């Protein structure tokens, strides 16, 4: 509902009701995050050690502490629809230092799992799935790399599925078992036509 006729749309956003209401919390969400992450995600006391340790935080809007808060309060929609969810590099610095012995990285991974179930996932992640399905690598070898490898006396391709293509069917079987490729294809198609 537009209340700010004639003003920039940004102002409309600023005037939104951002109160936390009791209905915003879904206790089931807290429980499933805990179950999937297998860490005490409900025990966060918001000290900020995680964000302070995070290599992503100084360079992005990603705040791991905020996701921990959402896990505690069960703010499912807020957590899963926040695009920052995908900015964690999974370096585990936060998990190393958390004084409550929680693994925030695993909480993020659990939320990503739950988001994927609702088809909330950035396309570039899905393209990584496609790449793995095709080559066994998230980042496949390319000609620049091949030249660089040759230069330092290595084989053009590493001793992975690039060299041993016969292992590809096994990798595809795993991805197919979880319908990862099919889902990725479907979502990419929906988004990009």
């Amino acid at each position: 509902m537009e209340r700010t006729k004639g003003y920039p749309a940004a102002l409309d956003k600023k005037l939104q009701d951002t109160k936390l209401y009791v209905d915003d919390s879904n206790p089931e969400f807290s429980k499933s995050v805990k179950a999937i992450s297998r860490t005490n995600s409900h025990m966060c006391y918001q000290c900020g050690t995680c964000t302070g340790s995070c290599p992503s935080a100084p360079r992005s809007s990603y705040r791991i502490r905020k996701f921990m808060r959402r896990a505690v309060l069960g703010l499912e929609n807020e957590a899963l629809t926040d695009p920052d969810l995908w900015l964690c590099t999974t370096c585990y610095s936060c998990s190393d230092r958390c004084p409550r012995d929680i693994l925030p990285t695993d909480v993020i991974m659990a939320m990503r799992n739950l988001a994927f179930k609702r088809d909330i996932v950035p396309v570039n992640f899905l393209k990584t799935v496609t790449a793995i399905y095709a080559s066994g690598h998230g980042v496949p070898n390319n000609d620049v790399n091949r030249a660089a490898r040759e230069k330092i006396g290595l084989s053009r391709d590493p001793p992975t599925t690039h060299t041993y293509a016969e292992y590809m069917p096994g990798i595809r079987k795993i991805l197919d078992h979880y319908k990862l490729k099919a889902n990725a294809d479907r979502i990419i198609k929906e988004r990009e036509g």
Partner: protein
Amino acid sequence: MAEKKKTTTTKKTVTKKPITKKAAPVKQDIKKQAPAAKPAAKPAATGSTTQQKPRVGVFICHCGTNIAGSMDLMAVQEYSKTIPGVAHVDNYQYMCSTPGQGKIEKAIKDHKLTGIVVAACTPRLHEPTFRTATKEGGLNPFRFEMANIRDQNSWVHMHDQVGSTEKAKDAVRIAVAKAALLQDLYPKSVPVEKAAMVVGAGVAGMQAALDLAAAGIKTYLIEADTSIGGRMSQLDKTFPTLDCSQCILTPKMVDVGRDTNIELYTYSEVNAVEGYIGNFDVTIRKKARGVLTPKEAEARGLVGGGCNGCGDCDAVCPVVKPNAFEMGMKPRKAIYINHPQVVPLIYTIDFDSCIKCGLCVTACGPEKRAIDLESKDEFVKVKVGTAILATGYELFPIEKKEEWGYKRFENVITGLEFERLICASGPTGGHLVRPSDGQTPKKVAFVLCAGSRDNTGSGKPYCSRFCCMYSLKHAHQIIEKIPGCTPYLFYMDIRSFGKMYEEFYYRIQDEGAKFIRGRVANILEDSKSKNLHVMTDDTLLDRPVDMEVDLVVLASAVQPSADTNRTRKLFGVSCSMDGWLLEAHPKLNPCGTTTAGVFLAGVCQGPKDIPDTVASAEGAASAASIPIHKGEVELEPYFATCIDEKCAGCGMCVNLCPYSALALVEKDGRTVMEVTEAKCKGCGTCGGFCPGGAIWMNHFTTPQIVAQIDAFLLGGEQ
């Protein structure tokens, strides 16, 4: 005692229920057999009247809804009436109340009861209450038995009405089986030595000793360090009043030194403890000090000799070591005192570093002749009635939390090091400087909860309780002493809970201290400037923080002092998971321990600031003086007794006894065992072991326990 009952009651779920109900009649005569066997066997017969048919009264407590809410108490009552030997059953809302106790007293008279069972909470909580009621009713108080249907039943099986009711029936039946066989027992009184011991002479130990001494009790004060005063003497100022710590402590130290009722043992430790409340025999190890006090000198015939604290020895000693009192930031000699105000003012030789060059001996001169390079540890035995442990704390080795860089980065220090650096009598004369270059810092970061509130296993899970406040005080001192210097406090919560503490927080914020709500994630050092980058998250601003500061002060967690564990074992005191000594009850008996006659004062029981420490010390002193002023204590008459006719004199029990209470003696030409009753704690080790069944454990006799087991397994049948 309660444990024994526990094991039987808990097992019951597995075993049978049906047999319980049937076969009521047979049991009667079996009951009679057991007691008949025992008075004959029991030599130290205490004038009991066990022969008569047992008439047990059962009283069931609702404990409000604590018990009544989880089980069918009427069913338990009806069942209790069918238990053989039961002459009277009643129930009441709160059996521990005056009307509840009145019911017991009246029923004993009206129904000529011989034993009492109260089904309620735990013996630990209310056994004394009901024993008194039993006594008031005219029975021997040891004819009381408790069935725990609350803590071990209704509270655990809150949602299993049927199961908890059945379990309560079992518990009552088992208690009745024992109550039917209980005998009259008479506690022994032993005199209490009119002397006390205080271990540790920090502010807690000193206060406790002063209080005891003022109450007219001879007090031995034992201190491991060379001087009394403890941690408080290392502090510069104290929050929230900003008194100079030394100024308020030194008078107390002097009082301790002067008090004729206090016998001070510095540079000493407790070596061995024997005995029990009223009669502890304590061996004190006086570590080799190498320096004679005037008294000791006189004892050696050197009148007018001994150390007068002149320091001539210090001046000539060629060995230089770090001074632990100054947190290693100042040198000391191999012969040293901690600081100028030490009590007693007696030098000490650190024999680990002394090279025995003899220069000090020469410097001391032929009149005083205070130095004895060949001195050895001495052992002194004293007898005390009660003892107070006040062994204090030390800092958690914060270098274990590597992310903060303590011991890696020069300009990261601990709160205690800060105290010495800001103290006028400290290594820098009170000028706060950076260890790396001696420069005055302009930005100082305080890391709160450094190692406290940490569940990772490498830190401490508890709140260390005084770091918030001393960090606020540090911030104040910086602002006061260094114009233009800004303190930044990195905190999670400011816990300013004491009297005038929150007001102090207000004041420090008003003075200009900056509070950043975020636990410090890590600290990095600029290798050139030796400045430090404090990395965290301003959780209130929701922005990551990288703050460059000149100095970082870690408010390190505290832990029990190193020797606490050894000392507590000597006195038989338990500790919690974190190593803090365990009080008898966290709320209602915080100074007592489960060992009668041993009390706790100060931080050894858990982190405390100075006001709480002094209060706790005064509490402990008061508690410790009670038995001494009473002059005698009653010992529970649970001791073991040897049945001489059955004893083969094998002596196996003598070695098993953990309290050295047993000995072999000659009696009527035979070797038999004899118990020193005052030493026996009634643990039952000997009684359980004796191959001939010759040891009679009062109040836990074999017939009584067998009857309980039978009652449980067979529903009273045999």
